[in-house]
């Protein structure tokens, strides 16, 4: 997420991925009453994916992630004697 325009593209990707997870045929793979640690697999699957989608949305909605890329501060950009010398 280095530029703002990408956020929309990411959110569309997340939308498509979660849609695929919640419609057949993927859902029918996990939609079985088998108990895992005493909890039905389908129940775990639904709420797990759901929580995952929410977490990803929250990540994507954070404010100002693009600010983490700072201005390029390097020695070369500083005024230096070399430059002054060149004009002499």
């Amino acid at each position, binding site marked *: 997420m280095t530029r703002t325009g990408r956020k929309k593209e990411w959110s569309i990707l997340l939308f498509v991925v979660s849609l695929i997870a919640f*419609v057949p045929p993927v859902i029918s793979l996990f939609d079985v*009453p088998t108990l895992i640690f005493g*909890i039905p697999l389908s*129940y775990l699957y639904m709420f797990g994916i759901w929580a995952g989608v929410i977490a990803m*949305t929250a990540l994507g*909605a954070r404010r100002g992630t693009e600010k983490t890329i700072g201005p390029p501060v390097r020695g070369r950009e500083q005024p*230096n004697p070399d430059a002054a010398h060149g004009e002499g």
Partner: protein
Amino acid sequence: MSGGIVLTVSFLYLGLLFAIAQFVDSRAEKGRPLTRNPYIYTLSIAVFCTSWTFYGSVGLAATRGLDFLPIYLGPTLVFVLWSIVWVKIVRICKVHRITSIADFIASRYGKQAKLGGLVTIIAVVGTTPYISLQLKSIATSFRILVSSSETALLHASSEPIFFIDTTLIVAIALALFAILFGTRHIDASEHHEGLVAAIAFESVVKLVSFLAVGFFVTYGLYNGFSDLFSSAAENGLEALFTVSSDSDYSTWMTMTVLSMAAIICLPRQFYITAVENPDESFLRKATWLFPLYLLVINIFVLPIALAGRLSFDGVSADADMFMLTVPLFHDQAFLALFAFVGGLSAATSMVIVAAIALSTMVCNDLIMPLLLRWKGLNINKNDDLTGLLLTIRRISILLILILGYVYYLIASESYSLVTIGLVSFAAAAQFAPAIIGGIFWKGASYRGAITGLALGFVVWLYTLLLPSFAQSGWLPLSFITDGPYGVALLKPYALLGMEGLDRLTHAIFWSMLFNIGSYWLVSLLSQQTAIERIQGTLFVDVFGHTDDERDSRYWRGSATVADLQQLVGRFVGIQRAAQAFADFAAERDINLRKSQTADAALLDFAEKMLAGAIGSATARVMVGSVVKGEIVGLEEVYRILDETSQVIEYSHRLEQKSAELERATTQLRNANERLQELDSLKDHFLSMVSHELRTPLTSLRAFGEILVDNPEVSPEERTQFLNVIIKESTRLTRLIDQLLDLARMEAGQMDWSLDTVDMAVTLREAMATLAGLIKENDVAVALHIPEDLPPVRADRDQLIQVIINLVSNAIKFCDKTEGRIEVAVSVADDMLEVSVSDNGKGVREGMIERIFEKFHQSLDRDEDKLQGSGLGLAICREIVTFLGGRVWVANKPEGGAVFTFTVPRADRQDVRLSAE
């Protein structure tokens, strides 16, 4: 439990809600709003969770397992796309002062009152089942709680209380409550702060109450989830662990799609999310907090449903009421009461928001346009209309609630909560094509929208609503089984013979086919009017148009400021209008006189302000009624706009090109000037050098010739002449050395050895070198070197060179008889400053800048020709500049010149070092 207690608790709760709303409103009026934060906003969106969620989900889960989930997954999916869908809708609502979903659609398709009216009718009819669902749940839960008998747990009696049907009492009570809440005054621009706060509070209550029952069931009755699930598995309830046991997911997918549409298109969701949104940035939080709320409130749905099934094993119980009956069955009367309050909060929040949203629509988009058309009423002459608006809204709230009650009487008894709710969702989903298409497709037209909506609505009526009447006996049952008049192809649950789908999927398929199909087709076939195109562009490109003000500036003709203010005042209140106009004038720093003709901006402002109170379509008609002269032909405006924007675009590009050209020309000119300058410098330099070389060469040759031509020269003279020759050739050598040095420096090929140098030592060394020259010229030299000089960063040999050059220069120009030279060092911030002053004539004005140029000294010092190459100062400048310092000259007031140069301190130049 006695009915008295339940009633008292209910009224106390409603009273508390009202107190919260009142408190927040009074705070907001004092300018200290409490509700302006994303958490309150998120909780208010949770009005999505109604009795359906609170009671109905459990009921559905008790019969069909996880099949209740898509109603909450759909909204989650839509909120994933928040930055594409919600931000746009919210922005449009803010820019155009949209008050409801009907207003939104009408405004998008050319501010047409007919479309707004149709949307309102669909919304009211579609919401009616939903309201009846809330009424039913409140009434049923109340009856269960107050009846003490065991059998009542299973099937609540429907005996009337106080000789009137409980549900009717509930309906009227809620109507009064909604009236008190939502229509205290007409809000033109402000948000309903108090309402939002109360709804948020209700969301907290229902969540806590639901979780309380969930915890009780899971951890009180059983030992956690796994215990509950394994007991259920042992009792043959495994089928409830899954969505579908036979891999048929058509209902699942239909419900997902429906709920996705519903979270945007339900009038109350649209109202609370988009219209009541105080700040766009709150969406950032709401976009994940709201789905999280949905997730949390759904965690215990399946456990409670399973516990209910296990508790009432083998007995047919009303699964919709497990939230109450399970705690009651286990003698937890207090918990049941808390659950009842939770259910009450879920139902009331929905009813209040829906009633307010719908009444606004009915008033703005249905009644007002009709009244305005009704010439006999002559509404244009009435003075204050705020009272009329409030009355219309209050009556519509009451009617909407009564309509819900009527639907409850006709159809609700035989259906479960979720079935009723889905009928409403299907109606709301009819708005989706017009809304989504409207914000992404400029070409969507009014005719397309109205045809799509009308057809979709008719199909919905035919395939979902009418059959529910038939099943309740209000229409002959043969309507369903044989089709109307026995036409089998028209059977409402199997249109054109399409069998095998469940009723909901069937209805959605046909209604959406007609809705989207005709919306699309008619939009392509029909011609957009100008205002449609303008509105279409404004909606689709809302982010591009937000900043300029040209939107809806298509009024021409004249209206006075007084006319406009009076018009606005009639709808929003005289004082409020006066205040708004004053603010408008103050903001723009203009003076509004009553008789002045309103300009386009003011007309636009007035129209938007009116739109906030009575909807965009009506506002347009109203403003039109006071603007004398005609409104500009919209076709004309559109053409002008279109052409203008093309011309602007074209000329903008031209401007860019010519700016680029100008820049290039300037650069070329600069480069050319620089070249010419360099050329003349080169010529100048060459003539200088040849002049300087010729002088010593001439004297060399002259003395050489003298010696050759006159062999009789005395030995003393010969020695003298030879000394002159040696001296001149030394000078020549030095000149050439200096020339080479300067050339190397200018070309950047000098070998520098930068190091930390002690200035005091260097100075003394340089002075020692000059001792001979000083003595020879009989000059008094004073050295001022402070203690503890910081070191400098420099090339030691070159530094000595600078000092020698400056001091010897000073020796040359100081007073011939009483020569005095002072060399002083001082410490500055990150430099050392060395100054060399003499007591000579000083530098002539105008020479101060040029003295450091090559050969200048020799050119302008015409009197007493002195030795020296004329390159010394130029070399000084080269060296000092390279070291990062500066050299300059100034005249002393008492006569004489001071040459000063600076050298960077070694302890203050990390930056420069890193740059090397």
